[in-house]
């Protein structure tokens, strides 16, 4: 069952990978015959649905293998977040039929699945506090809510790619390029991690943590920075250049440095090859989109996603927290960041409905909103210690 599940996930990944250029074809086909566009889109959405079914197959097979919903660690959650993103796209597609949305959303979903597989993929048994049906009720609803909200980010980026004038460098082109750089860095992180994993690189350290206890830390990448009072045990492994204070996890900081380094190299190479900003490079893909329609898609995604997110990440979360942790609310970092996400989208809705923040302003807000969601997923789990740090 576990193997079947893994194969389903590969299949889903491959199908999404094929669907991206197909949607690309649907966008480019606009100049030719009208049916051409329709046919490309139809193939694209069929592939997407097929990929989604495989993705769902992964989910169900893994569930049946472990006996619990596969949403209990970083790999499982991120993978199902990707699945929800595709589901959200399928729903929105049938309302608005925008092929460019498919191309960008599936790219993000691919990044999410690849990013997820950088974490341990073992099927883990559940610790007592997770042994509850609320695990899947709370986590899947929250993930679905976040995924629908993420669609507004995709729509926002499409909006900005078309709207921001690439011939005049300024704040807008800079920040749009920052988004592109972060996406490139994610690719770089995946590439670097996979490369060292293939090479089976390991470097073991003895170190002293912040409670002044001695422990062992294993690096999967050559150590540029070493852990606090680190002592390299593996022969032939690279010696760290700098030693970190005890409050940092050497392994994590090292990974971040490698990813950003590789991201800079990759980004620089792309700039050298194409001699223009990446956002300028891909903006022709969106030149035919109707800005008002994309704006509405973004808003619609927030208006559908906001209630789902509230239900999953706050209401169900509180019910479960009352059962498992004796209190419905305890200001745990994850809880606080869910509240921040809620407040942020509440502000988005009020700005839009009452202050008339449409179009570009709304698109930037959608980008910030997604940044908050990703911060809550990655940073809060991996860096801020709390009850949700299970990766």
């Amino acid at each position, binding site marked *: *069952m*576990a193997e079947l599940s893994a194969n389903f996930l590969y299949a889903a990944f491959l199908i999404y990978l094929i669907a991206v250029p197909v949607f690309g074809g649907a966008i480019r086909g606009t100049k030719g015959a009208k049916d051409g566009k329709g046919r490309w889109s139809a193939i694209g959405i069929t592939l997407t649905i097929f990929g989604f079914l495989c993705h769902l197959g992964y989910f169900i097979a893994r569930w049946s*293998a*472990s*006996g619990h919903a596969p949403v209990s660690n970083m790999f499982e959650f991120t993978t199902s977040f990707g699945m929800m993103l595709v589901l959200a796209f399928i729903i929105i597609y049938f309302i*608005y039929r925008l092929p460019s949305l498919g191309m960008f959303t599936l790219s993000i979903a691919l990044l999410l699945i690849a990013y997820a597989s950088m974490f*341990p993929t*073992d*099927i*883990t*048994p559940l*610790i*007592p*506090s997770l*042994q*509850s049906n*609320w695990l899947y009720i709370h986590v899947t609803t929250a993930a679905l809510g976040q995924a629908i909200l993420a669609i507004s980010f995709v729509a926002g980026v499409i909006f900005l790619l078309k709207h921001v004038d690439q011939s005049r460098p300024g704040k807008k082109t800079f920040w749009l390029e920052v988004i592109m750089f972060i996406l490139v860095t994610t690719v770089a992180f995946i590439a670097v991690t996979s490369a060292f994993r293939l090479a089976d690189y390991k470097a073991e350290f003895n170190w002293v943590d*912040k*409670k002044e206890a001695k422990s062992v830390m294993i690096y999967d990448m050559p150590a540029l920075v070493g852990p606090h009072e680190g002592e390299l045990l593996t022969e032939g492994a690279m010696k760290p250049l700098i030693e970190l204070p005890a*409050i940092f996890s050497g392994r994590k900081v090292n990974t971040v440095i490698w990813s950003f380094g590789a991201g800079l190299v990759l980004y620089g190479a792309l700039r050298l090859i194409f001699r223009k900003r990446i956002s300028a490079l891909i903006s022709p893909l969106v030149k035919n989109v109707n800005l*008002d*329609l994309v704006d*509405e898609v973004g*808003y*619609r995604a927030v*208006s*559908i996603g*906001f*209630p789902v997110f*509230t*239900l999953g990440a706050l*209401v169900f979360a*509180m019910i479960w927290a*009352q*059962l*498992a942790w*004796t*209190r*419905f609310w*305890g*200001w*745990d*970092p994850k809880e*606080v*960041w869910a*509240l*921040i996400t809620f*407040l*942020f989208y*509440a*502000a988005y809705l*009020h*700005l839009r*409905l*009452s*202050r008339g923040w449409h179009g570009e302003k709304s698109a930037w807000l959608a980008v910030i909103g997604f940044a908050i969601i990703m911060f809550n997923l990655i940073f*809060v789990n991996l860096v*801020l*210690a*709390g009850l949700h740090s299970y990766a």
Partner: protein
Amino acid sequence: MKKVKCECGHVNPAGTILCESCGKPLDDQKSLLADMRYDGSARRSQTYNKTIVDKVWNFFSSVKVGIWLIVITLAASAFGTVFPQEAYLPPGAQPDTYYEQQYGIIGQMYYLLGFHHLYGSWWYMLLIASIGISLVICSLDRVIPLYRALKNQGVRRNPVFLKRQRLYSRTETELSGDAADGLRTRLKKKHYRVREQEGSILAEKGRFSRWGPYVNHIGLIIFLIGAMLRFVPGMYVDETLWVREGETAQIPGTDGKYYLKNNRFTMQTYNKDTEKKVFADAIDRAGNGKVAKSFTTDAVLYKREGDIVFGEKPKLKRVKENNIRVNEPLRFDSYSVYQVDYKENQLDQMVFQLIDQKTKQSFGKLKINLLDPDTDYDLGNGYKVQIASYLPDFYFNKDGEPSTKTKVPNNPAFVFKITAPDKPKGEKSFVAIQQTVEGSESNKYKLKFDHVETKNITGLTVRKDLTLWVLAVGGAIFMIGVIQGMYWQHRRIWIKTGDHEVLVAGHTNKNWFGLKKDIEFVLSGTGIQEPADQKELAKNQA
């Protein structure tokens, strides 16, 4: 201020922008499009600004202020996650030194500025309270005008009103009876409610979604009230209870009404050999037998019978026996008892052997209950042991004298008096197990440590929270309101015929794409021009 009478005859309250009935502008607005917020009804905050009440009202009724409050709260909340809050410090950590030690000067600043209990600080409470006030006033300021506008809206609208809608078209044609019938059928097919008056049609759907924001704000207000109720005495109990296996303890917070007996506490861990094979890798990674599988207290709940008499043992009546597990609290009355902590293998009984130091001959064993030790132990044949002094948690105090830190037997030490047939006056012997002191060398007899028996202690949290149902009601109303407001739209289509022309206008509070598609469908085949998006036109001209 005076009421304003429109040319259509409707009397509007002061401050009205568009006539409530026909929509004719009552002020001289020059803009191309009508301000359709609250359908141009009078709002208190836009009409009065004289007294202090007006000013406070106007301040809090502003959505701009509301958004600022949200953004400030959001930023403050984020700030509280920079370092762990006081409640999440490791056990035993002192906040005044912890932050500085762990995070240096920034950590100390964080502590000194009070950010270590940010969410309980007066200013954070004030922010939340301001959001609450803003919610109430914003809602009141808008809900009444909106109600008036939607209730009074006429079917026949002033042509100026239609012209100033975002979707508008004018077609020079006469509408035949058949075409009009077709219009009506198609409107109804799209679930519009159609009203007609002298050649004018008002088709409307999803009006109830306009109430969504007010419903969800009411839900939030109830939720915030529920959160405040916690501070009312008697509404909220949060106590900790430690019970040793085999013991019965009064449940704190229940006014001595309930008792709980811990029959047994068990902790299970995941073992590679007994779990499913798919878990093998993960268990290996974390360490075999290292990951917790379950914490269970086999508990019996008792209720006290009769009145409390001090000094008398309470009469207990067994209510039920239940396993308390994480995620499965024991519930009774309005209380819940949760499994939250444990201590395994706590010293409980200690067994000694009385021996002759030289010959190692044994004269029998004695078992000491470390929590409630007997004083005298008769081993027979004239051998007796008496506990002269018992220090359950032994240490040397400031004056260098043996003393006990607590009443918990963490480090038991005894002074025994041993009487034997050949030592009728008795020998005194000091025994401290962890210090491996087993009496003095000069004595004839010695109490040799044999073994200990341990027990587990379960750590439980006792909670009563009578505010939960208020929060649940608030949360439910909020969810209903949000869904009502977000998943439906209030769409209106006006069609005005006569004078050889047909005017069509449309308005929705959101999702214009859907409204355009509706109108396209409704007008198909009638020859009436599809309404243009005047906002887009204006943009293209500019």
